């Protein structure tokens, strides 16, 4: 999140889209309701009327995968009616920057597209630069190639009729949402957008969020209290996991994973450190070498020196352009290219698309190490229904795992707050924490390398790896330590002491830190700040519920990101009633300012979006794989034959795999005319491996169901409570029909299209409850993140003659 949970109560208008917040983030609704108490409007735009919709002011159903059409229409509405916050847009966003002549857009394609590689040459989208390499600017926003004018042209196609026909949303409902939300374009009004996997799990996922980003920048809603782009992160410490980068393509602190084109430390630093010659742009990533070098020091300890590039050459490198995420990983496994591995903390045999394929793929492994609280569809894949265990060669190890309550450590919430969790009770019997397991593995592996040698032992042996797992000391190392006596701002720190903040990190080998973003979280002065529970705050902070002394958030305990955009050029809050920071008597008060420089008007300020090279909020975003502006493309499996906005039906750059088990239905395939969306539940988490084994949770949600409208049920002769078969090009799933008015038929492209929804938490290891919904979903993904399109595919449904997966 750019903001944080409590801040939601400061909003005047709340748009919940691509999220079912009340069901999947129940605590968040405390703050939504507090905003509502104070008169905020709460709108829920989502295919299904859910428990979130019940508590919103109104619900607007739309077809899965058409969010960009919807949001594009809102952008056009803002521009046509001049509802944007002009000063904010001109001063703080890149709306005034002039784009080079290489940029163009025609018929669904941006310039630079290569159909052979299915990718764009993004250099075509660059800005027009002056002699210093700084983008030219027209603050009148009139230049035909300034971002503002290009944006107007781009979204001019998103008129009400085309948007309505695409999304299935009535013109009346479109205007209702647009009017309500865009009223927050005024300087004293703030609107927040709450989103989650309903937006990300599409082949246009990132562009969904980009669309919202454009809207929030136009309305001046970024950096202010009650505003923001607020991603609701997952329960399993997803925020913490992405910060410490369990994802393959990044290393801790959101830096790029080294690839084979960067063979040396210098290569990496050169390629990854952005340069800006604009003195007004902070270009904060210019400090990347300090964070990178400190990370390497933390990994390799004394072995890492400036002379040897901090042991950079010992790091594994991925092949440039290759994709190692789940979709490709399981495809390689299917092609017998992977011998073995560790699957831990997830249940992919239930939660990855095209389950029939991935379950088969897992059979190809020689060995598999898993760790769980319970047997799951993954640990027991080798004895799944229909498979003779004797035919599966995989040797599976199931290590008993400690439960979260049996471990201590920090968990990072969606608001970037690090919260310490204490151990309630010791793990039972031989169950261990993952930390204990991994330090145990590494200890043995290193011993073997020492004793037996092997191919390239250095990357393993030269690691400064802990012998045992201790969460407190790990958190201290994550914060960072000085590797020699150092003076910072007149204060002397001894070798081994904790760094006070990432501003103390260097690239000369004097500091180590496992994650620059977390520097400042565990310090000599403040101790383990994740444990702080003080409600102390100044009146200004109290006014917006900032709670700066409760826990600690990254970066540097700044609660609202980009908050320099919440004040005018003189440092005065745009909305004094809900001020975030203010320049008073020569200093900033309130939240930690997003850069301590004085206000812009002094001439010594910096543009507020310090993490982007040019310093502006990116309305035009040339860094994405699929274009600098968002564009509606149909989901890969779509019930319609054409795209109302261009000739390009699907994203021209979406990712996919293509084994013989990766079948896709054709657009408007009459065999699969119904749109399926899949989702979580309050009562079950993700693939259900843990929660199906908690009796009172299973009691509340006992079996796989499919929510469908009475109209669709009537067409198919299905009654509420009947067993049904849901089928896609990839597989079939048994479910119980939940016939409900909460699913509405949609009028799309002039005809009725039905949408149905299913949870994905039920699996065969809990007999009679159903099995993987993901047998239906396709292995197609977003070009930036490879996140699969779980939220939209095409199916058919019929009444079942008999049921084998569900108890009756």
């Amino acid at each position: 999140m750019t903001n944080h949970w409590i801040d939601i109560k400061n909003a005047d208008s709340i748009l919940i889209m691509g999220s079912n917040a009340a069901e999947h983030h129940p605590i968040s609704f405390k703050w939504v309701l507090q905003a509502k108490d104070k008169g905020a409007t709460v709108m829920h735009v989502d295919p299904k009327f859910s428990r979130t919709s019940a508590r919103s002011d109104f619900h607007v159903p739309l077809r899965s995968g058409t969010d960009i059409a919807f949001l594009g229409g809102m952008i056009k509405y803002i521009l046509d009616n001049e509802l944007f916050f002009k000063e904010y847009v001109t001063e703080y966003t890149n709306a005034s920057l002039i784009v080079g002549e290489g940029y163009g857009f025609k018929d669904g394609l941006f310039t630079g597209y290569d159909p052979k590689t299915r990718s764009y040459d993004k250099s075509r989208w660059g800005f027009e630069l002056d002699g210093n390499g700084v983008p030219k600017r027209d603050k009148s926003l009139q230049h035909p190639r300034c971002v503002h004018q290009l944006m107007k042209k781009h979204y001019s196609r998103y008129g009400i009729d085309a948007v309505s026909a695409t999304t299935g949303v009535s013109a009346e409902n479109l205007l209702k949402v647009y009017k309500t939300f865009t009223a927050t374009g005024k300087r004293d009004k703030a609107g927040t957008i709450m989103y989650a996997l309903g937006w990300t799990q599409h082949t246009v996922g990132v562009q969904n969020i980009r669309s919202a980003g454009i809207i929030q920048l136009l309305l001046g809603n970024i950096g202010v209290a009650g505003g923001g782009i607020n991603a609701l992160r997952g329960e399993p410490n997803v925020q913490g996991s992405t910060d410490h980068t369990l994802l393959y393509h990044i290393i801790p602190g959101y830096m790029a994973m080294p690839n084979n084109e960067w063979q040396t430390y210098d290569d990496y630093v050169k390629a990854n450190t952005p340069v800006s010659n604009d003195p007004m742009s902070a270009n904060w990533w210019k400090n990347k070498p300090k964070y990178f070098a400190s990370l390497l020091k933390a990994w390799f300890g004394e072995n890492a020196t400036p002379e040897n590039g901090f042991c950079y050459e010992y790091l594994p490198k991925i092949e440039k352009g290759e994709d190692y995420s789940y979709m490709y990983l399981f495809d390689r496994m299917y092609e017998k290219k992977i011998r073995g591995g560790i699957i831990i903390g997830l249940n992919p045999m239930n939660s990855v698309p095209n389950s029939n394929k991935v379950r088969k793929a897992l059979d190809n492994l020689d060995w598999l190490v898993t760790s769980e609280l319970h047997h799951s569809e993954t640990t027991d894949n080798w004895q799944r229904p229909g498979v003779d265990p004797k035919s599966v060669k995989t040797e599976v190890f199931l290590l008993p795992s400690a439960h979260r309550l049996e471990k201590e450590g920090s968990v990072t919430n969606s608001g970037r707050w690090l919260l310490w969790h204490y151990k309630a009770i010791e793990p039972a019997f031989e169950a261990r924490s993952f930390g204990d397991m991994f330090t145990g593995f590494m200890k043995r592996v290193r011993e073997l390398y020492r004793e037996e040698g092997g191919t390239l032992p250095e990357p393993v042996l030269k690691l400064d790896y802990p012998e045992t797992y201790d969460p407190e000391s790990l958190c201290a190392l994550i914060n960072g330590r000085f590797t020699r006596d150092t003076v910072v701002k007149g204060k002397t720190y001894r070798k081994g002491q904790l760094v006070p903040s990432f501003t103390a990190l260097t690239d000369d080998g004097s500091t180590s830190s496992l994650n620059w973003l977390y520097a400042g979280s565990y310090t000599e002065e403040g101790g383990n700040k994740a444990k702080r529970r003080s409600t102390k705050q100044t009146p200004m902070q109290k006014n917006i519920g900032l709670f700066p002394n409760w826990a600690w958030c990254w970066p540097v305990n700044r609660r609202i990101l980009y908050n320099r955009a919440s004040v005018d050029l003189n440092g005065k809050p745009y909305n004094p009633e809900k001020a975030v920071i203010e320049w008073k008597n020569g200093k900033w008060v309130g939240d930690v300012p997003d850069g301590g420089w004085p206000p812009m008007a002094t001439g010594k300020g910096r543009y507020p979006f310090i993490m982007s090279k040019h310093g502006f909020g990116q309305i035009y975003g040339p860094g994405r794989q699929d274009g600098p502006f968002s564009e509606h493309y149909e989901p890969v499996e779509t019930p319609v034959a054409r795209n109302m906005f261009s000739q390009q039906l699907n994203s021209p750059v979406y990712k996919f795999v293509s084994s013989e088990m990766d079948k896709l239905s054709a657009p408007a395939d009459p065999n699969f005319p119904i749109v399926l969306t899949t989702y979580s539940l309050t009562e079950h988490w993700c693939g259900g491996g843990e929660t199906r084994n908690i009796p009172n949770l299973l009691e509340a949600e006992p079996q796989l169901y499919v929510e469908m409208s009475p109209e669709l049920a009537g067409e198919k002769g299905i009654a509420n409570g009947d067993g049904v078969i849901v089928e896609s090009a990839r597989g079939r799933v048994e479910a119980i029909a939940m016939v409900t008015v909460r699913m509405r038929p949609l009028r799309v492209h002039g005809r009725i299209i039905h949408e149905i929804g299913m949870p994905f938490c039920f699996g065969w290891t809990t007999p009679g409850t159903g099995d993987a919904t993901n047998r239906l979903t396709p292995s197609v993904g977003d070009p930036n993140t490879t996140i699969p399109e779980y939220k939209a595919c095409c199916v058919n449904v019929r009444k079942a003659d008999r049921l084998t997966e569900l108890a009756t």
Partner: protein
Amino acid sequence: MPKSFLIDTSRCTACRGCQIACKEWHELPANKTTQYGWGSHQNPQDLNANNYKLVRFSEHLDGDVIRWNFFPDQCRHCVEPPCKDMADMIVEGAVVRDDKTGAVLFTEASVKLSEADFEEVRMACPYDIPRRNENSGLMSKCTMCNERIHSGLQPACVKVCPTGTMQFGEREDMLKLAEARLESLKKDWPEAMLADPYDVNVIYLLIDTPENYHERSVAANTAGPMSKKQFFATLTRPFRAMKA
């Protein structure tokens, strides 16, 4: 000073926190439940010996507008509990009232009631709350977490509720809060009402008509043309001899 609950359904998101926290606190076992032939999020389907608290779901289309009402049902801990009046005539002490907290409690003595006796007690309740463990004969329902209250804690369902739907405190304070909340909600919800606030210690604040929540959300909603007065009059039927 009796305690009261205010259950503000305008804030309920049917998360089932209350339903499940209650079971976890009382260590009640799970029932086998199903969607087959049922097709609803309401599970278990009804209150039972293992579920003292049940979130009831009720949906309907109001023109083009979908309404989905949630009713986190539980014993009302009536000011003058009809279940106690009935039980006193059969087995004294099977149902007692803690005058300090207002909690109406089924005791171990309730096992002495036959199944037929129990049905009398159950029918006496305008909200259809009393249930019975088939094996032991023990009558069961919400206990107001009486032992927690005596230890200065809140009832489990109140503690766990994330949205402020479940409120708990001194009866006077809860009645004041109820009136204030009702006032603020009337603007958007003209149908808003409090359910039998002066007869019960568990006061539901409804924003839709009672029928759109649950048959037994208010006492006047009991089947048949009887008024509440008439219903209570049935309690003065001839005394039935206690079985040996």
